């Protein structure tokens, strides 16, 4: 008897995963390749708030269309 779960795994970037969740709720979203946007070069926090993390990992940018938000950046702690 075969298991219903596929043996093939499809590793997906966190950026692509989040982009899919945006598309599911009807947002026109598209991922951009890593390190291709100026937003990724700047500081991700202004340090006005004391609980901003010292170290974060950038997972890339998602470009939005038809919304007041221009881009979404996915960040991981540590």
């Amino acid at each position, binding site marked *: 008897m075969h298991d219903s779960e596929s043996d093939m795994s499809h590793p997906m970037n*966190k950026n692509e*995963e*989040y982009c899919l*969740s*945006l598309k599911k*709720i*009807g*947002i026109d979203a598209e991922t951009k390749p890593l390190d291709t946007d*100026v*937003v990724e070069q*700047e*500081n*991700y*926090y*202004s340090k*006005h*708030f004391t609980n901003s993390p010292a170290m974060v*990992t950038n*997972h890339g940018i998602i470009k939005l269309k*038809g*919304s*007041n*938000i*221009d*881009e*979404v*950046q*996915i*960040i*991981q*702690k*540590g």
Partner: protein
Amino acid sequence: MTQNLNPISWGAQDRYQAHFIVKTHQRDVSEENFLARPKLETKGYFASKRVTGVQWIGGTLADTLNSDAELKNMITRLSYADAHITVEPTKGNIRIYGKWKDSYNFVMTKELFAVYDRIASHIKRELGSPPVQS
């Protein structure tokens, strides 16, 4: 050798955050004007904790957000964790983000996106750009 009972966590953790960015297009903006965080009025405890009121604290953007009754209504319909929204300007961009979430809960809902989009529309208006009607 004794074992450290309180080890400091290091490396990438299972905590994710999505920053919703409104670009200022190199306009010279006062950072303090665009800082905003809500002070939440709540009812109940633990899992049944609900948001009953919102008071934005920060710069001039906070005053604008406080005057939007519909936005306050929308935030009271969010979960307590999702209602913790921060608006923070960085060089050339204004970022809207919520609390850190683990990979299992790291998804966007229609209601939360509508709140972020409405905050972004107020930011655009303050920057002098026409907001997108969605």
